[in-house]
């Protein structure tokens, strides 16, 4: 299990007129090993940019990302990613989509088949192994995305608003599955969301970010017991989080 340390990270973009603007400003926090850290903040504050920087899709301008106790000594750390949309290869079966990720992660061929079956069973899609993604529902596809990210057994799993594109009932089931798997598998997870109830349910720790340029606003430990149950206490903690975010925004304005 690895711990992710984000240290004084800074990211700049350029407007169309060539003017630079700062998206992330000296942001520091850490995602503890084996726990779910939820990142919340206003729209467009740079949460997805941070995740993209962690997986190497964007380059940071300043600061450092450290993986403490990373089990995969390689040039680029192995990171599972559950995207907002499932991003499955539609011409490959569900099983092949996961097999390809395992091949990319250099998992031995003999072990791949077992992992594919194991993780599809964990997300409740064992019987769909030979099905093509376009024949599944949105929620089922997102489960496959979750199975793929977990199957590579990486140091860190990133989830970028993974349930934002499905209906609330499906999202609730997916949250339960994901939270159960996080508790069961003890993975280090960095989870981005806009939804405060989702943050309250999914998190062990919550990192709140300010408006752009994003910097650390608050770091809150979730007091709710595990295994997590969906109930009034979730909304209570969500309301507490809302107060913090809202208060900060009012102070700024």
């Amino acid at each position: 299990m690895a711990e992710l340390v984000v240290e004084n990270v800074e990211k700049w973009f350029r407007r169309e007129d060539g003017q630079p603007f700062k998206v992330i400003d000296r942001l520091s926090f850490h995602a503890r090993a084996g726990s779910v850290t939820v990142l919340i903040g206003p729209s467009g504050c740079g949460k997805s940019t941070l995740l993209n920087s962690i997986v190497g899709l964007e380059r940071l301008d300043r600061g450092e990302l450290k993986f403490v106790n990373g089990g995969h000594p390689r040039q680029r750390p192995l990171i599972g990613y559950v995207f907002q949309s499932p991003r499955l290869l539609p011409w490959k079966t569900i099983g092949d989509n996961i097999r390809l990720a395992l091949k990319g992660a250099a998992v031995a061929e003999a072990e791949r088949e077992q992992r594919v079956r194991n993780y599809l069973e964990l997300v409740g899609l064992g019987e769909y192994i030979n099905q093509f993604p376009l024949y599944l529902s949105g929620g089922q596809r997102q489960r496959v995305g979750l199975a793929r990210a977990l199957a590579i057994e990486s140091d860190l799993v990133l989830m970028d608003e993974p349930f934002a594109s499905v209906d609330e009932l499906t999202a609730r089931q997916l949250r339960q599955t994901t939270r159960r798997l996080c508790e069961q598998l003890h993975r280090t997870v960095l989870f981005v969301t806009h939804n405060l109830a989702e943050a309250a349910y999914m998190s062990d720790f919550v990192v709140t970010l300010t408006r752009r340029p994003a910097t650390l606003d608050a770091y809150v430990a979730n007091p709710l017991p595990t295994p997590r149950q969906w109930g009034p206490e979730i909304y209570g903690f969500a309301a507490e989080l809302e107060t913090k975010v809202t208060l900060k925004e009012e102070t700024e304005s």
Partner: protein
Amino acid sequence: MAFDSNNPTAMTGSPAGVAGAETIPSFGNSFGRDLLGRILPPVLAVTSVIAIWWSLYLIYPRLLPSPMNTVNEAIRLLSDGTFLFHMYQSLRRVFVGSVVAMFFSVGVGIYMGTVLMGERFFQPLVVLGLTIPGLMWALIAVMLFGINEWSPYFAVTVTIFPMLVINIWAGVKSLDKDLMDMSHVFHFSKWMKITQVILPQLVPNIFAATRYGLGLAWKVVVVVEMFGTSNGVGYQVMKSYQVFNMEGVIAWTLTFVVAMIVIEYGMINLAERRLTAWRPKIDVWRR
């Protein structure tokens, strides 16, 4: 009566089934309808061409051969083995030239679409290649290589290459960025990216290019064979032309067209259906 779309008995008026028994809806004779829908339009298209030809023959009997005589001539060519020999020669030339062109065009197209320097280097060459007619390449090939097999291979390859590249380049430019990012995140190797992510997205472009490329390759091969080889369909057409055998010219052309149709429906369509089996059928004009 109030209409309840969730209640099938309200729509059909049939009595409700016994509790626990499952009623399987009838989908009608879709097989017969599919077959009719697939066969009728091309049959109608061919029939209308024959009808126009027949009418023109009735108006200008001296200028045009009768469809019946032409069909008889085609049957003779097919039965005495002449057709098979010459068609094989032409097919081989088209096939070799097309495969070589396809191989290089996929590589160059992907390179142009993914590397800016590649695009800047090849773009003027491709545009230049597109402006040169196939006939010119046929002449140049015969002058360069003489009367041998290299002439049609070269002429076909260089004629269809730029057109194939343009298609594949356009396909690469519209690749799904999200899938490319996904392949990067999950550490796909370059080979995996090309074979598992890029090429499958290019399948529609490759098929469009193949269809158009084959049509163009046939035309070029026929021209080269007319003056650069001693066998093949083009050579036979030229021979018939020299003795003013109009039935022969049209019979050879017809058999040639039939071979093209067999390739299109028998090979390309089947391959395309197989490679796009993952895609659910879309009924655009559904009401």
